[in-house]
């Protein structure tokens, strides 16, 4: 029945085609204009992102000479070496831990702050401004400030903890704490941006839902769990994805706070890439690492989209 109908439609259209033909020029009008508008973006992306990526793939199959040019083709040797190297494994582990420390914590803290400042209270604008302030902080400035706060001798955090009788923590000196310190700095820097996004999401939730729940007698936390979080899920998903990708790419804070140490405990992949490329001048292994990083982030993000998005409720 439906097929018959479809066939009839096709016949009619075909008949019409014979009488009516538009020029190719006209038909492609859209794509031509689109390309014109997209040209700057495509050009820039090609030159500054896609080309380097391809070049990186290429270099990852080589050993490079002192000038950074491909010198000896080694096939997969760089990759094999990396996979076997304890250093790289450690670097992966640290990166994984780091992501684990930073992503949930920043999102939860930002969510908490956003919930606080979503209340209708006097002077709430002031608090919102404060909470979003870390977005304006550069990595360099933030890291320098935290470097000072973590300082083993003059660091304020330790003296603060001392007031409560908590013994001084070797923040940047102890391998475990060093990673945590970097995570703290990163979380602090993340909060501003995440906060703004989540707050925006909160404000988009229809107030009537809460009123309705109030009439039903649902308490604050019940509402939080059953209404706010599900309604916020698209925003949360967005911010988790972005934070996740950014976390994998953290560099500046490592460079300034620990330079990968102590005992390579904070040698996150991007920093390791930087070291191999700019200090050891081995573009081959650096490139191989970059490719592996890209693949990991890509796969994880895809997985996140696949599984995370199921739990997201779009309106």
């Amino acid at each position, binding site marked *: 029945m439906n097929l018959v109908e479809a066939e009839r439609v096709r016949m009619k259209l075909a008949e019409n085609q014979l009488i009516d033909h538009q020029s190719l020029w006209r038909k492609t009008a859209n794509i031509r204009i689109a390309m014109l508008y997209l040209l700057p973006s495509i050009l820039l992306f090609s030159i500054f992102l896609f080309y380097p990526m391809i070049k990186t793939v290429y270099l990852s199959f080589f050993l*490079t000479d002192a000038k950074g040019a491909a010198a000896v083709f080694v096939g997969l040797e760089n990759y094999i070496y990396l996979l076997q190297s304890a250093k790289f494994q450690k670097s992966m582990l640290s990166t994984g831990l780091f992501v684990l420390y930073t992503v949930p914590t920043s999102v939860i803290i930002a969510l908490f702050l956003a919930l606080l400042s979503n209340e209708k209270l006097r002077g709430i604008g002031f608090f919102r401004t404060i909470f979003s302030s870390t977005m304006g902080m550069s990595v360099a400035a933030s890291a320098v400030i935290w470097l000072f706060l973590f300082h083993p*001798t003059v660091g304020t955090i330790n003296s603060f903890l001392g007031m409560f009788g908590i013994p001084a923590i070797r923040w940047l000196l102890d391998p475990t704490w060093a990673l945590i310190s970097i995570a703290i700095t990163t979380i602090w820097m993340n909060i501003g941006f995440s906060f703004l996004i989540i707050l925006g999401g909160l404000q988009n939730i229809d107030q009537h839902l809460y009123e309705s729940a109030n009439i039903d007698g649902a308490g604050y936390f019940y509402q939080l769990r059953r209404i706010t979080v599900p309604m916020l899920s698209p925003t949360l998903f967005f911010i988790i994805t972005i934070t996740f990708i950014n976390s994998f790419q953290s560099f500046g804070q490592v460079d300034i706070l620990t330079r990968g140490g102590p005992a390579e405990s904070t040698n996150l992949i991007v920093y390791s890439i930087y070291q191999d490329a700019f200090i050891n001048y081995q573009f081959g292994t650096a490139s191989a690492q970059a490719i592996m990083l890209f693949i990991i982030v890509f796969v994880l993000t895809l997985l996140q989209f696949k599984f995370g998005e199921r739990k997201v409720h779009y309106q």
Partner: protein
Amino acid sequence: ACSTEESEASPETLDTETTDNNDDSAEEEESPVEDDATGDDKVSVEFWHGMGGGLGEALDELVDQYNASQDAVEVVSEYQGSYEELLTKFRSVGGTSEAPALVQVFEVGTKYMIDSGYITPVQEWIDKDNYDVNQLEGNILSYYTVDGSLYSMPFNSSTPALLYNKDAFEEVGLDPENPPTTFSEIMEAAEMLTTDDRYGFSILGHGWFFEQLLSTQGADYVNNDNGRSDIATEAIFNGEEGLRAFEWINEMNKAGTFGYFGSSWDDVRAAFQAEQVAMYLDSSAGTKGTVDNAPFAVGSGFVPYADEVERNGVIIGGGSIWMANGISEEEQAAAFDFMKFLQTPEVQAEWHLATGYFAINPSAYDEPIVSEVHEEYPQLRVPIEQLQATLPGTATQGALISVFPESRQLVVTALENMLQGMEPKEALDQAVEGTNRAIEIANRTSGE
């Protein structure tokens, strides 16, 4: 080529033509063309350096003086970030027109620079100019001399020294005027000096110090005479001497008399000044600042050596100035002229006092201002004496490998691993292994 006469003639013409370097004259400097127009045929020499903060200030001061002292050459000093960043950038512009005439490179970049093909050894100009190198400190020159020719002009050189808290020494009954000199003496002193909130001894997490502990024992870092007779193919610092140094630290660490304050220069100094540690190894260049800031009397001593051997001495560290080869002869001449200027006793005296780096030209120490300060800060004399007491040899000449930065990183990791409980031998072996792989790759790609 411009000659010495010109530079001698210059001091008289100290007039308005001179541009002071940075701050306010932005517009003028943005267009070198304009400069050319006004400063008739001044040769411009670009000088890249990695001196931040106060060091940069002092350096700029010297450059200004030079520019004011003559009319023919205009040196433009440009900060390029840390040594690593500086070298990275030079690597990428080396051999092109972007390259600067002069570039400051840290000591471990020496081998790379020699092999890079981007530079002209200063020896060429020394020969051409008949410059008397003997007036300079031999122990410093030796580092930069390979196969008998001097490749770069030493500039900011330093060695480590032992700094200690005299008050604390007195407090625990040690002789404040007689610092410990051997590993075991240090260990004993450290034990006595350690209290609840003070460690006895500390070393910065930096490969340089480990190298010093090797060299005082007369041991090489890599084979082939520290890479100086032939290209190095293997690291050997995990030998008896290296292990001795590591075990020494390990023992103190286990005893709780060794405090570790990370790999940042500032942290260990702050700890010392805050009396959290009583003795530590520091760069001679940091001595003055520490003496000034510490609220107690600071003493200075030689780098300790193992009891089993004789003291060999120290390797110098810091940086030297290299001359690029892509530039015109005229520019090279101007650049060399600037180098010579830097080596004059007066300038070296000033530099030494401002920064704490050695005077490359020892006659600077005879300058009255220097003696005055040395009087006031006897601690400053100690590194000089230590340097002059150093026995020549491949060990104290320093290793020559291109992968030094990586190797140093590996040594620091090894040290930190050991402090976290790894066996000294295992830790050191790992560092050697890593260094060996790096050397191997470097040798493979350089086609040798």
